[in-house]
């Protein structure tokens, strides 16, 4: 079952992201905040999980062509409740762990996966504004090339397409420094 409302919401999300997100935010955040605060959380906790839920929703729309069968508020509220339950579990475990005696072997097993993430993002930063904005608009924000061509004043969709692949090729070249180090055996 596909609701017309949900389809037009998805379209609006991609073509007019900022205003659409603001509308969703204004409508749903107060409910989430109420729920989290009723369940031993703070305003900041509510903000964090709500934003996480919105990001999940956005990515599902772009990558999986999600169409909702319930209202968006219900859907987002569902994600938030799950996230908040997980967070509470995590906190409970942490408290329990920090009280438990630590054996020497179990110490210092934290894997640092921050570094490659930061390095990868730095490659995108170094691309320059034109390429960066073109690639991120297309690949992450799911904007159509027609809209991108118009916003970036390309002569045609065709030239925006060529430019997109040029930029992607530049990024691919840039990350090769990382992939050589990462994939070295």
């Amino acid at each position, binding site marked *: 079952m596909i609701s017309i409302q949900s389809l037009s919401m998805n379209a609006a999300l991609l073509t007019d992201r*900022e205003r659409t997100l603001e509308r969703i935010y204004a409508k749903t955040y107060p409910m989430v905040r109420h729920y989290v605060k009723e369940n031993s959380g703070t305003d900041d906790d509510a903000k964090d999980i709500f*934003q996480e839920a919105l990001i999940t929703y956005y990515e599902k729309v772009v990558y999986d062509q999600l169409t909702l069968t319930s209202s968006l508020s219900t859907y987002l509220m569902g994600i938030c409740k799950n996230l908040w339950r997980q967070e509470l579990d995590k906190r409970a475990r942490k408290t329990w762990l920090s009280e438990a005696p630590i054996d020497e072997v179990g110490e210092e097993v934290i894997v640092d996966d921050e570094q490659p993430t930061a390095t*990868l993002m730095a490659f995108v930063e170094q691309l320059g504004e034109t390429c*960066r904005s073109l690639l*991120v608009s297309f690949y*992450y924000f799911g904007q159509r090339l027609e809209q991108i061509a118009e916003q970036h004043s390309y002569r045609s969709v065709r030239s925006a397409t060529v430019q997109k692949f040029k930029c992607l090729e530049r*990024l691919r070249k840039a990350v090769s420094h*990382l992939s050589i180090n990462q994939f070295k055996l």
Partner: protein
Amino acid sequence: MRPLLNEVQLLEDYLKGTLPEEQQLDVAVRLLWDQELQQKLARQRLAYKALRLFGRRQLRAELEAIHTRLFG
């Protein structure tokens, strides 16, 4: 398009699985022996990953701005 760009596009379509069946198979077979192509594919995957991470961070920043506007 230059041949190099064609190749970037080819790999993108291959990853999306949108090539005609025969061509899809062609690339899959080439990937079995062509180490250079394997590397290019791996790098292209990394490039997409980088864009996803970067985009996510930008979206998070946009949401923070909305939050501040609406709820201070």
